[in-house]
């Protein structure tokens, strides 16, 4: 068996009788970029929520680095190095870019229950936070409240915040959704740059992003795995083409 950082077997999630995800097997190879694609409503985000334990699967098992994480709480999953981003850019709006990243870095302190101490205790993280913000091109916005950043910059900040935890597996939920073309190029370059020594699983609609970045692609449709392989094999797969044409009709 290849060196898989994450293995999900027979994953399923039902909502009041409706099966959003069924029988999904997923193996993510270490140090690869793996993309999860599929038409709207295929269950991609549900899969993400299951893997990060924001949702409890109705059936199935999730193994991360050889350990069963099926019954863990989401915060514990994150502590083991499986860190997600969100579809809607998830930043702490009233906190500066620096504070956003610092909150993530401060996790390494352990408890953070010291309400009697000055927040100057966090200034040890300033250098690292500046580095991370530099890496994602936000050096000029260190003190800007996150809510005031442009959409593309919010996504970049979110990636910097995720990177602050030095995750082993990063789950990016539609990292380029709703972005202008120049922002998309920036994020793609950023993902290329941060992939070294990391595994990335991403949900993405933009197929040019998917083809350019991913080593392996899993196609979901109606909650099931439709196909899996590299871009060349998946993009010529009969079932995949049908599913996508259908969704394009629906979108139009």
């Amino acid at each position, binding site marked *: 068996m290849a060196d898989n950082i994450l293995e999900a077997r027979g994953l399923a999630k039902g909502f009041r009788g409706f099966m959003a995800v069924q029988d999904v097997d997923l193996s993510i190879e270490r140090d690869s970029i793996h993309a999860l694609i599929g038409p709207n409503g295929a269950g991609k985000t549900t899969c993400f929520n299951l893997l*990060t334990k*924001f949702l409890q699967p109705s059936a199935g098992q999730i193994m991360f680095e050889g350990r069963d994480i099926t019954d863990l*709480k*989401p*915060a*514990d999953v*994150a*502590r083991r190095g499986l*860190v*997600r*981003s*969100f579809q809607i850019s*998830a*930043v*702490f*709006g*009233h*906190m500066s870019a620096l*504070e956003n990243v*610092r*909150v*993530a870095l*401060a*996790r390494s*302190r352990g408890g*953070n*229950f*010291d*309400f*009697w*101490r*000055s*927040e100057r*205790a*966090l200034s040890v993280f300033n250098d690292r936070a500046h580095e991370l913000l530099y890496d994602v091109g936000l050096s000029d916005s260190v003190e800007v409240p996150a809510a005031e950043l442009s959409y593309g910059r919010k996504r970049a900040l979110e990636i910097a*915040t995720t990177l602050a*935890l030095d995750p082993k597996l990063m789950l990016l939920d539609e990292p380029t959704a709703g972005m202008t073309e120049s922002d998309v190029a920036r994020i793609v370059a950023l993902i290329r740059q941060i992939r070294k020594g990391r595994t990335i699983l991403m949900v993405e609609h933009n197929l040019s992003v998917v083809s350019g970045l991913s080593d392996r692609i899993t196609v979901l449709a109606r909650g099931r795995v439709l196909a899996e392989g590299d871009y060349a094999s998946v993009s010529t797969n009969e079932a995949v083409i049908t599913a996508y044409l259908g969704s394009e009709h629906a979108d139009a």
Partner: protein
Amino acid sequence: MMFGFTRAQAIGFVVMAAILAVAPFVAYPIFVMQVMCFALFAMGANLLMGYTGLLSLGQAAFFGMGGYVAGYMIQTMHASTEVGLILGGLTAAAIGVVFGWLAIRRQTIYFAMITLALAQLVYFFAVQDTGFTGGENGIQNIPRGNLFGSFSLHNDLQLYWLVFAVFIAGFLFVHRVIHSPFGQVVKAIRENESRAISLGYKVEQYKWVIFVLAAALGGIAGGLNALVVRIATLTDVGNATSGLVVLMVLVGGIGTVFGPLVGAAIVVAMQYYLASFSDWVTVIQGVIFIACVLAFRRGVAGEVASWLKLSL
């Protein structure tokens, strides 16, 4: 700046301390003391509402129990004043540990409903005349006792300086909590709870600690208030008081440093100076509440801060 005050906040703090230092010579000391007690109570509620995003409708349980315990300890057990106050605060904190543990399991309106229900349990306990709370009569003629067993607090002015000192200490404490590493995490939880979880924070534990801190502040405030007015009654532990503290936070300015004091001053002043309208006071309060929600959503301190483009 010390304690993480911005310049505007530091100036505001000095002005506030100066006004409160002069106030007992100008205004009715009992009134100003009650304002400070309720401000301390509201600062705790503001930690929950403003800084964590948790609406509790049961804060009176802590305020009321703080008053009962302090009153009982000083009157019946002849404890010195500071012991009564500290035990009042600790009792409230202990109740906060249990109530918080239950309430943080739910969010938004469900959280609020659980706090409301739990506070009703405390009220039910207080109604029973067990010889501790005095039932319908409450605890009457509470002696103010002696501070550290020796300094008499019988004189209003002597008590005033104690209330003043506790209020200032509470104010600085709350400010420190907000500007601590813990406060940063709590702020992050308010801003985006899911994101905080995805960073590995066990958000329930942080909410729990904030809940207990707010309870403890409520208990100390309730104890002090019982010394000021020399009675501890069902009013202090009832729903109306829980609503009152929410009103104070909203009118004063939710999530602001000075809002709770401003809100407490306005609401307590209404009760003092509009007392002749009797039942109409609640109607007037209701109108102010509606006006606040509709027109001044940031409350007095919040609106002033945004006019001056400052953080207060």
